[in-house]
């Protein structure tokens, strides 16, 4: 549980973060979204005290972060940034081992953790452990950056535009990896981005910031359906709204009984993707299967469209 209470940061007369309060549940992904200069990065950096708050406080599991020495605090909080910030003079394995080494883990434990993380991020240890960062592609560097942030099994992971420097295809892959890894370790993630699409895709909760203030904090559906201010409404895009809503639900949510013909769709597919496939194939219904391929029922265009309608 992370509680941010009345957090404020001023530089001279400029207020960069203005009285922000948030409560973040353990094991969830919270995405702070806003334009550049909205104060979202400063908010993030106050959590691991890279920026000292002017007032307000952050509690992690009830404990004020100011009561923990800053280096010790940062050892417990993973931190991944845009452009990864890998150490160019250290190999991939040494980079990942940074915090475990600071914590004085024994070599065997470090080795097995590095090995585990490399495999998890689909980087074959034999091939990648001894390489230097500049020998990797952008996507690989980014994965090593996240692996390094996760090395000491932090309960909280802070990510500052971690996928900002990646091209769209690699970014999509990196987002899926993050979701998979977050589910596996149950890490609490706070991620900062300016990309609304990314926010809705990754966030269990989304916090919208503008000009130092927190405008709205809620689930993606709440923000889409009941935007708190005109600015939030503009940000979520009135034209895209129904489609975004559809991308938040899966085929399982719109499941209907009965058979249908054609290519089956997996129950985990988002309604948006399912609709796109039906439009493309010129069908109004598709059969639905579960992960093992067993038939569950069908999904129809009408059923999907109902999910994109403005709730009463």
């Amino acid at each position, binding site marked *: 549980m992370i509680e941010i209470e009345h957090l404020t940061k001023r530089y001279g007369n400029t207020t960069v973060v203005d009285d922000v309060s948030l409560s973040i549940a353990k094991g969830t992904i919270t995405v702070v979204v806003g334009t550049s200069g909205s104060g979202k990065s400063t908010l993030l950096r106050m959590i*691991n005290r*890279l920026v000292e708050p002017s007032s307000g406080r952050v509690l992690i599991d009830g404990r004020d972060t100011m009561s923990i020495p*800053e*280096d*010790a*605090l*940062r*050892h417990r909080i993973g*931190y991944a*940034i845009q*452009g*990864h*910030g*890998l*150490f*160019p*003079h*250290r*190999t991939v394995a040494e980079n990942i081992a*940074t*915090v475990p080494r*600071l914590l004085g883990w024994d070599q065997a434990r470090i080795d097995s953790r590095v090995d585990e993380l490399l495999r998890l991020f689909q980087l074959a240890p034999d091939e990648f452990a001894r390489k*230097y*960062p*500049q020998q990797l592609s952008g996507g690989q560097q980014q994965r090593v*950056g996240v692996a*390094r*942030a996760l090395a000491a099994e932090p309960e909280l992971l*802070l990510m500052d535009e971690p996928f900002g420097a990646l091209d769209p295809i690699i970014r999509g892959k990196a987002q899926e990896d993050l979701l998979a890894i977050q589910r596996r370790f149950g890490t609490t993630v706070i991620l900062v981005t300016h990309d609304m699409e990314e926010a809705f895709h990754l966030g269990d909760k989304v916090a919208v910031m503008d000009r130092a203030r927190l405008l709205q904090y809620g689930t993606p559906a709440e923000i889409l359906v009941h935007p708190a201010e005109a600015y939030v409404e503009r940000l979520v895009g009135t034209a895209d709204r129904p489609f975004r809503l559809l991308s938040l639900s899966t085929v399982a949510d719109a499941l209907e009984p009965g058979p249908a013909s054609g290519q089956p769709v997996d129950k985990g597919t988002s309604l948006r993707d399912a609709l796109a496939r039906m439009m493309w194939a010129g069908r109004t219904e598709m059969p639905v299967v579960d992960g093992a391929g067993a038939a569950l029922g069908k999904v129809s265009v009408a059923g999907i469209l109902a999910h994109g309608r403005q709730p009463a």
Partner: protein
Amino acid sequence: MRALAILLRLAALVLLVTFIAAPNLFAPVFQPLTTYDAPAIYNQGSLFSLTLSHLATVFSAALASTVVAVLLGIFVTRPSGLEFLPLSRSLVNIGQTFPPVAVLAVAVPLVGFGEAPTLIALFLYGLLPIFENTLSGLTNVSPLTLEAAKGMGMSARQRLLGVELPLALPIILAGIRLSVVINLGTATIGSTVAAKGLGEVIIAGLQSNNTAFILQGGLIVALLAILIHDALMSVERIVARRLGQQPAGAAA
């Protein structure tokens, strides 16, 4: 190409060692440069021991310059020392612009004749390249890398020793190389204030109008400079490779 370069260096080394160990073998070569039956080979001391003293002077001065310049460079790039940066820059620059001969003239009345004034002159003269390279090495470390290091909970000391200095090391080493090579030549003037070194051979040649002596002294210094320059370059390359960098000048 590479084999040829190694061969040339090896030849230079063999030539140098033979010459300082048994200079009389080369007497016939230098004989035409002398007049009135003057000795062809320097005969007022052993070339071997003069070379050793010369190297000792240069390397002790370089060691002192390195320690002072690197520590100063580290200090003025820390938040607490930042305000001393302009001052240190001026001081180090003065060390470079003040001619070593003038330093000798000022130092002799203070510390007497011998090695001491030469060491002082070389020390001051050698500061600038090392200091400037330390500065640029430390300030060129990517802010992103440092931000990541800080965000992972590395203390200021761990960041300096584990990230900043290793990343700056190749540039600092290049500064040390420059300083050493410049001072190998400059050290010859130490002989004007009775420091033991290869300058003696050159000065003896000037005083007795013996071109052979001048050439011998100059040749040994030049060969030393070339060989030491190359050796330090290889050290830099090895260090750069250890730090995961493409060595400068090598094709990727």
